[in-house]
């Protein structure tokens, strides 16, 4: 099914009696055979006000279309959404609704926040066919409960998004990276020193023996801060491809499962060592050490490691995608899901 308007979407949801897989760009492939509901018919930017740093778009709009439009006006989505299509081995382009549903957020999350932090409004159709709006198109809004946050990262299990609004940032005029060659054991400490400095670091990752720090902004200021940071860390200004890290391109096309761990940054290297002992083949760090991208042999359970945080199986079929939740929280989540999707039909695979 491919509803071509919110009105049609309402009808589809009201009539639906069996399970539906909500498909945006199709980056996340469902494991079941439920009927797909494509959002591609809900497409287009509905409002763009560069002088107010706001964008409103229908949920099926492709991320690429939005990024091109913003770039033309020297603006960007603050949270640097990742495109995991290549990693997942699919030929598709993510939709903005999919970005929201998965709360997809790249390296800049450590300073600009996640998708949920830039998302300022949603419209969605819940599992019974009721259209609901929350938030709006202004940057500050505390009117009623913040369902905008709830929808972000809910993997389409609470409703089908029809329209999303964002606050934007001016695109950086300049960007520079400082590189420190070191073992991954010490990378979190280096990144902590960088983030503890006043130099406004907005990217901090470690790949293959190189720790990279990014500063962005007005060109003179970037040159100054990069130099100061290199001096502080004993590193050098150099090239680093943040998009490759953001999209986990290094693991695309490689055999094996891909895991994503979110932990306290200083726990990152410790966890990495344990994951390697368990059999992990490659590990990359983002978010100052707090995000680990892990390539591991298919079917090998990386959740056996000891860690405090969250692990998701991004690519792989043998194990659960989502980490089980503590009982009290699981009960709250289940009850919430029942309120938003009383017929229990939305994305049966996700968030379980």
């Amino acid at each position, binding site marked *: 099914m491919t509803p071509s308007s919110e009105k049609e979407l309402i009808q589809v949801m009201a009539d639906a009696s069996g399970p539906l897989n909500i498909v945006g760009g199709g980056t996340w492939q469902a494991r079941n055979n439920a009927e797909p509901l494509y959002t591609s018919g809900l497409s287009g930017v509905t409002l763009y*006000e*560069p*002088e*107010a740093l706001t964008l409103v778009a229908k949920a099926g709009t492709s991320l690429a279309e939005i990024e091109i439009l913003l770039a033309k006006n*020297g603006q960007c989505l603050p949270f640097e959404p990742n495109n995991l299509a290549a990693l997942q081995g699919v030929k598709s382009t993510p939709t903005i609704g999919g970005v929201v549903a998965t*709360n997809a957020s790249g390296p800049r*999350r*450590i300073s600009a*926040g996640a998708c949920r*932090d830039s998302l300022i409004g949603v419209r969605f159709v819940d599992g019974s066919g*009721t259209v*609901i709006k*929350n938030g*709006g198109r*202004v940057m*500050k*809004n*505390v*009117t*009623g*409960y*913040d*369902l905008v*946050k*709830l929808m*972000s990262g*809910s993997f389409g299990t*609470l409703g089908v998004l029809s329209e999303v609004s964002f606050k934007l*940032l*001016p695109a950086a*005029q300049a960007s520079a990276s400082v590189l420190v060659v070191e073992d991954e054991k010490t990378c*979190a*400490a280096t990144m*902590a020193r960088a983030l*503890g*400095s*006043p130099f406004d670091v907005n990217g901090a990752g470690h790949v293959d023996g190189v720790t990279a720090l990014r500063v962005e902004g*007005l060109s*003179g*200021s970037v040159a*100054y801060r990069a130099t*100061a940071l290199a001096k502080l860390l004993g590193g050098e200004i150099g090239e680093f491809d943040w998009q490759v890290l953001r999209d986990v391109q290094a693991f695309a096309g490689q055999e094996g499962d891909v895991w994503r761990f979110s*932990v*306290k*940054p*200083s726990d990152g290297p410790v966890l990495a060592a344990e994951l390697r002992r368990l059999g992990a083949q490659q590990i990359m760090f983002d978010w100052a050490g707090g*995000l680990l991208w892990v390539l591991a042999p298919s079917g090998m359970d990386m959740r056996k490691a000891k860690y*405090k*945080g*969250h692990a*998701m199986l991004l690519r792989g079929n043998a194990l659960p995608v*989502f*980490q089980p939740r503590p009982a*009290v*929280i699981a009960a*709250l989540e289940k*009850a*919430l899901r029942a*309120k938003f999707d009383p017929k229990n039909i939305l994305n049966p695979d996700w*968030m379980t």
Partner: protein
Amino acid sequence: MQMPVANAEIIASKAGIVARLRNLLPDGAVIDDPVETKVYECDALSAYRCAPLAVVLPASTAEVAAVLRACHEMKVPVVPRGSGTSLAGGAMPTADSIILGVARLDKVLETDYENRFIRVQSGRTNLSVSGAVESNGFFYAPDPSSQLACAIAGNIAMNSGGAHCLKYGVTTNNLLGVTMVTMAGEIVELGGAYLDSGGYDLLGLVCGSEGQLGVVTEATLRILAKPEGARPVLIGFDDNAVAGACVSDIIQAGVLPVAIEFMDRPILEAVAKFVDAGYPDAEALLVIEVEGSEAEINHQLALITKIAQRHNPVEIRESRSAAESANIWKGRKAAFGAMGQINDYMCLDGTIPVSQLPLVLRRISELSKEYGLDVGNVFHAGDGNMHPLILYDANKPGDLEKCEDMGAEILKLCVEVGGCLTGEHGVGIEKRDLMYEQFNGDDLEIQMAVKDVFDPEWLLNPAKVFPLDASEARRG
């Protein structure tokens, strides 16, 4: 303001309820003497008052859980309270409710500079959180003007903002985790010292839920390294709309100041009588602050000055020293107090798309004439969060009602132009019955369904946020 009829049965059982609570808590933690409960009658929306049944001041999460479990069993409503600085009546009690104050929960539990967070008990004041990490070169970014008094608990409940949120975001963007107790007395940990905890974003849901989903007892907050320096520039204009246009141009030019504050003539006149900030004679004044190294500050200020010059300012004054910076901010910080010297005032908090600023300012001044009430505008211009202050005389019969009617018209206007009723103060009792302006029945129903999940019997701060007629069936 209409409040629900208090439950007479609960009021009649006061002695038993108080005795049971005394059993759970140490000496002095339960207050029921009407003289002592008087301070808890209202928050900063002081036009509305009502003494609670009793006040409890627990000092640990376990004590909070014990109190809530007991109140849940006895079916007694509970109103959580931080420092009572809410401008929306969020912490106002009803006669049949217990005030649960977190003032004794004021400790720092953990500071971790390597991972850039601090964990505190929720009764700790906003400013003392920054105070605890300041000497290590860090700060907690959200800075409401009330930061000396307001508690992190209230900040989380209201999702409070501050002057610097243009760059750093509001409370929800700086909150990593909470420990919360549900009305049934269950302790829940949401989020933590890591960025993603999987599952639904319950942390984001709880932040801004105005004490209706649970009582927050601890919070993990993101702390940031202090910038090398910061400096404001002051720019005066002879026209409000021109000042608004200048704000748009600055934002679009790609400079991102940490703060853009706006004051209009009535505010400037009030401020001039109250403190000596040395502001120029202007219709509208912007205070814009930028951060960074000395060179970065100069560069950004030069860009801003260049843009401002295109708008024929009456004066541009860059701060040259710490003393001058303090002076520029002195007037802005004194604005509310200065208006308070003239008369009683009501502070609105609607947000509008920045592009609508000239229109909305013009309509506000027309309404001011229609109603015969003076209005001053002081607000966070970068993000469209308006704070019209309407002056009225509390001792003049009918004046408060007139002021409220005018306030409601302004808020409706904010919604009409694409904005919202409240940008940072919250709905509380104040804007509860205006919620239909922004939401339809379905939008409100799903929000109330969320409360049903956390507090099925609607015992926690029940008479807030939702229009009374909408929540009536649920409140029992």
